[in-house]
């Protein structure tokens, strides 16, 4: 069995990574999962979180805000927005957090008494905050 696989991380605006990796930890919508070579084909949604890439050439972490991952021959992660962890400054984090907050507020007004969309937005927001805490950025609530 091969011990590496092809991994691609693409966002709509650019291709962030394309390399051979040995394992990738994916922040799936229903919980984290780790994809290794030979994994069964899976398609999963992403929640905002940290994508950990382990490659023979070194480990890299990326921040993703949503999208999906497709595990087939290799692994492709299609993220709505993605950047390397060390490029995520407090400002950039504040910006995406602000976006999630305003969306939560809007959804709350729009769908009063409908728990579905409001819960989704609340989950998105709390995922964002959790992600910030995990990487040591202040979510200043």
């Amino acid at each position, binding site marked *: 069995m091969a011990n590496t696989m092809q991994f691609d991380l693409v*966002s709509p605006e650019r291709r962030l990574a394309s390399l051979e990796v040995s394992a990738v930890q994916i922040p799936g*919508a229903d919980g984290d999962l780790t994809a290794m070579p030979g994994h*069964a084909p899976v398609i999963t*949604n992403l929640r905002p979180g940290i994508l950990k890439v382990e490659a023979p050439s070194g480990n890299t972490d990326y921040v993703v805000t949503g999208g999906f991952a497709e595990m*087939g021959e290799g692994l492709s992660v299609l993220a709505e927005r993605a950047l390397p962890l060390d490029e995520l400054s407090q400002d950039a984090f504040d910006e995406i957090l602000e976006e999630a907050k305003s969306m939560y507020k809007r959804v709350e007004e729009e769908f009063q008494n409908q728990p579905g969309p409001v819960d989704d937005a609340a989950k998105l927001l709390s995922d964002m905050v959790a992600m910030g805490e995990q990487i040591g950025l202040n979510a200043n609530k």
Partner: protein
Amino acid sequence: MPNLKDLKNRIESVKNTRKITKAMQMVAAAKLRRAQDAAEASRPYSERFNSVLASLAASAGNSESAPLLLRGTGKQDVHLLVVMTAERGLCGGFNSSIAKLARNYAAKLKDSGKQIKIITVGKKGRDAIKRDLGQYFVEHVDLSEFKSIKYTNAQSIAKALLARFDDNEYDVATIFYSKFVNVVTQIPTTQQIIPATFDDQSSTSDTTIYDYEPDEETILADLLPRGVATQIFSALLENGASEQGARMSAMDNATRNAGDMIDKLTIEFNRSRQAVITNELIEIISGAEAL
């Protein structure tokens, strides 16, 4: 015969025009390169996305509970046309060819008794179809403040589209944009985005059976709205590259025409200068003979 002074002014002014068109051509060339790079960079994402979406749709899309975005509302009564053009003119037939396509499409729909609504993206297209189709406008998206198109622009357009779809304002949405082939060729294109359509080949060639987490329908319901944004984003980028390409070749033609005009005017100028000299000589000689 126009007098010498006028001709000289004329030549000067055409020369200035040529300088401007030359500069615009070079600016367009630089912007074209950037637009092309952006379009290229987005391609892996949209291709991947569409192939996954297509295989999902093939496996989950036939059930009764499939999202409305995929199987449509079951009606075809109200059509929403999203006409995407440039914010600026002076780019040859770019804007007018998209406008023409939209106009023909709208006319065909009207003849078959459908209702139409129009969202315009870009000022120039709005102006071009206002006279014929102005009463159908429901919204206008202004992108003139943005120097380069970002994914968030596409997302906000998609959000507006989806909100209207959720309110049952229309049944079918089609986007109009120009596909970039090369600098001299851009093809005005129509593409139906709601209900979603896929290339047949990608859905049949992909035979891997995936596990889905959460289940297929949840993923599908999550991905379809993103798919709309992705398609709009790539259309916007194609449009951006086409606009710059069209402007570049239009300005190249204008520069060349100005050159031709200068040559012609210079010949005319020299001819009339000679005529003036000849006239003066004749006057002097005949004056001398008369003495």
